[in-house]
């Protein structure tokens, strides 16, 4: 295979992202979950930088910067503060056990790949093949949200999903227009803040962040 070097770099990042996604899916401890999330952000930034350098899309630098500030510094920091304040360091117990989750994850990845295959064919970018990985990341994050029992880990899943989306945007289309990027970033930020507020309220109302307390509203 005679791909240009930066393309290989990007593929490497993509592979790393997928690996991290799996890691998060299987990770039991919240603290390391957050670190993994930060790492994922890091990889994302890296890939964005590579792309922007290779295809000198100037606005991608901004988006890379944005991602770095938000996903690598700010959000992990907030989350750390939160769990320290809320003293939730305990392990995460999942709804279905890890191996099963892994298997489902594998199936999802395969599904995502041949879902993205026809699209990658027509993609004009150098990074066509990564779209499948992005999709896989999104689906895995979704799976993670389903399987986790703790509010915090659900939120992290949500943010991981955002990462996947961002990666998809950058890799498939060299990033969305800047307005949109900014808007998305803003929403994510505000969203996380609101999450934070919520954690405290849930915490003080239910003495725990376990979402099985949040199953009162239902039919019959």
């Amino acid at each position: 295979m005679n791909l240009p070097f930066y393309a290989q770099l990007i593929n490497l990042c993509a592979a790393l992202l997928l690996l991290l996604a799996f890691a998060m899916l299987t990770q039991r401890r919240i603290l390391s979950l957050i670190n993994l999330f930060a790492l994922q952000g890091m990889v994302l930034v890296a890939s964005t930088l590579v792309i922007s350098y290779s295809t000198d899309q100037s606005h991608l630098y901004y988006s890379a910067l944005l991602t770095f500030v938000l996903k690598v510094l700010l959000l992990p920091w907030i989350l750390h503060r939160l769990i320290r304040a809320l003293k939730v360091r305990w392990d995460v117990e999942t709804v279905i056990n890890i191996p099963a989750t892994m298997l489902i994850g594998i199936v999802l990845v395969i599904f995502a790949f041949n879902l993205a295959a026809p699209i990658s064919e027509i993609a004009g970018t150098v990074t066509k093949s990564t779209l499948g990985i992005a999709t896989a990341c999104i689906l895995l994050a979704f799976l993670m949200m389903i399987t986790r029992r703790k509010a915090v880990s659900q939120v992290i899943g949500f943010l991981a999903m955002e990462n996947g989306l961002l990666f998809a945007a950058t890799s498939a289309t060299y990033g969305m227009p800047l307005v949109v990027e900014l808007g998305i970033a803003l929403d994510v930020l505000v969203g996380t803040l609101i999450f934070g507020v919520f954690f405290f309220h849930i915490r003080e109302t239910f003495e725990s962040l376990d979402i099985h307390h949040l199953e009162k509203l239902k039919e019959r």
Partner: protein
Amino acid sequence: MELMFVLGVPFAGGIMLGFWGHRHFAPELNSGMSLLTFLAAAGLTARVIADGPVLVWDGNFFVDSFNVFLVALTAFVAFTTSLFSRPYMRIELAHGRLTPNRLRLYHSMYQMFSFTMLLALLTNNVGVLWVAMEAATLTTVLLVSLYRTPASLEAAWKYFILCGVGLAQALFGTILLYFAAEKVLGPGGTALLWTQLNEVKGGLEPTVLGLAFVFLLVGYGTKVGLAPLHNWLPDAHAEGPTPISAVLSGLLLNVALYAVVRAKVLVDGALGTHFAGNLMMGFGLLSVVVAAFLLSRQKDIKRLFAYSSIEHMGLMTFAFGMGGALATFAGLLHMTVHSLTKSAIFFTVGHAAQKSGTQIMADIRGLIGSNPTIGWGLMIGSLAILGMPPFGVFASEFMILTAAMHQQPWATPFLLVALGVAFAAIFGKVQPMVFGEPSAKRLPHRPALVPVFVHLAIVLLLGLYIPPYLAGWYRQAAQLIG
């Protein structure tokens, strides 16, 4: 120009109320801001009627007959709801369910909410549309959790997670759309402008758009409340303050549906098949049936009408999916009358619940005795929402059903059963609340029932006589949507 006002006023209002939202004059300020917004929207509408669709600010904002009437509707209902919320929130304060700080949050977020909705309607940029929807979600999450009761927290959390995830899908859909568009329009801002997309939709890549629509439908569909993505909706409606339930049902769902319809136009244009339409019909029908059967199990009055909203959104989705001049016309009309009627119902429901100090229907009795206006309002509103002539809801249901009988006969039995069951459920629960021996307490403030009867009067009018210019709008919009 008006457009700047339409967007600027609620934004400024949000900020101002962020400072003074707890003062005694805050409710009036709130209504005043909404009134200004409404006036600006009216002006905008007038101009669009006068000289056709307008593109402003290098095409980032676009007003055509489809969204302008939604803008007018949104501004109007937001205004009347603010009128209703004046006494309502005061009573809540008096009953001690709120603190002044919460009230401030409420007022500020109320304005922000209407800002985000108007933004979502007015923007021409599909990406900004997404951003606005997300922002609307965030603001409403704060509003739903306003009371900070366990139930409201749970509701807000579910709302947040489900809609957040849903919107993430929508974002992916948007990305795919952009991905397809940039093949044709080249990279940069224009590739997300709906007008541009609409012009070149024939040339967009079908496979990509097919997938994009799936993601967009799941995403915005969650917000519309299509079964089986609807689960957040009843909780959020039941646990939030009633004015918010009113605007949620009356406006936010419309806006989400608006997004879906815009997407449908592009996708069906690109695929040249009826793919999107069929999906929408399927979801619509499913929602109608599911909601109808769930209606009969409700004990909480606001949940009841939340499910009825699901049913009606399903009906609209079905209509838009069916397509064709008649059905689309009916869908638009149904959008209008549903938001008017449903918000009116929530107004009465709010006061009824305050009067009898509970939302449990079994404990609300004999409203007609204790407060005739509330009683009649609830009775007439329910009859209207159940599609009883001469109210406008009947007009649209009439057109939808007959069109369905012609275009999709297989669907009519489901609709027949669903409408019947829904009628039995809702009316069987409303009747004893309205009639019978009263059980109620006095309210510290006079309830605001003017909005109720204004809405119902408009709905009644629309059932008997649709003004020509309104019909003109609908027709243009229908042509737009196809």
